[in-house]
């Protein structure tokens, strides 16, 4: 596991602001914090360097490509087959994310599809894989559902008591 990075109030403010709008100018953030623009620029690059900010992300409406539906699948996999299943999912062109999970299911994967036929295709393709014992398919009603404003970013409190 990665070691947490200590962030202070200015760092937290930068992260919060950029989460809501990545194109907010450093000048505006600096005004908000009451520090110089240079400080914000430095902090931003430090946050990138330490790996807190891993990159930028643009979420566009998938309609344009005809991919109207987002579906998530939860599957149960026999013990030795997890690696092979993840590899298969990686090679499926419309699988946008997949990862092992712990709980009632073993693997979670997210797909984009154009129509109902494709939902069926995805389901069948997964079901016929060796090692799959159960697949649950759920179609999302909103395309991404990201809520960046809900992420709590708190500056580290000074650990005086250790």
């Amino acid at each position, binding site marked *: 596991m990665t070691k947490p990075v200590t962030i202070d109030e200015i760092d937290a403010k930068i992260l919060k602001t950029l989460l809501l709008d990545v194109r907010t100018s450093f000048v505006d953030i600096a005004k908000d914090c009451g520090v110089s623009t240079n400080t914000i620029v430095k902090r931003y690059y430090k946050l990138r360097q330490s790996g807190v900010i891993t990159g930028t*992300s643009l979420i566009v409406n998938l309609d344009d490509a005809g991919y109207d539906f987002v579906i998530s699948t939860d599957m149960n996999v026999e013990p030795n087959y997890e690696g092979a299943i993840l590899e298969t999912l990686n090679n499926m062109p419309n699988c*946008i994310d997949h990862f092992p999970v712990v709980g009632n299911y073993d693997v979670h994967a997210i797909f984009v599809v154009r129509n109902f036929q494709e939902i069926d295709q995805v389901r069948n393709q997964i079901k016929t894989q060796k090692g799959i014992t159960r697949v649950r398919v759920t179609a999302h009603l909103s395309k*991404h559902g990201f809520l960046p404003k809900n992420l709590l970013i708190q500056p580290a409190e000074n650990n005086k008591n250790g």
Partner: protein
Amino acid sequence: MDEIDQTIIRELTKDARKPFRKIAMKIGVSTQTVIKRYNEMKTNNIIQIATISIDLNKIGYAGTAHLLIKSSTGKDLTKSFEHIKNTPNIVIATKAIGDFEGYAVLVFKNIEDLFTTILQIRKLSDIGYVDVVFSVPGINTFFPKPLNRKYLGKKSPKSE
């Protein structure tokens, strides 16, 4: 969407902070045009979110819980979802159709956090059942993940 819009999206997918001036130079139009197109795409909801992705582990988050939600019989989740969407640390929430009627992602710093939030969601009157699975730490810790990478010619990042 024309060629200009598509190029803007392609460039911003690579780096969403890329100066409009540089994008304009690449396309061969004025900076004003690029700004106008960008703002139009935001108002028309073609660009839905422009944000940074954060490594949640690095800022103290321990893990991610995926909540698979079913409503109690005969109930509609609309009201409960309004509540869920305003719950701190619920970073993804959408109603759904199929084996589950709702899908939400909760990030948490410790077990107490997790316990409190899940209990709070279970108490909502229209919710019948919440199935929780956890993603393995270190694999799925970036937020948010772009949904459009394959259609804009961006290679999917290797999971480390």
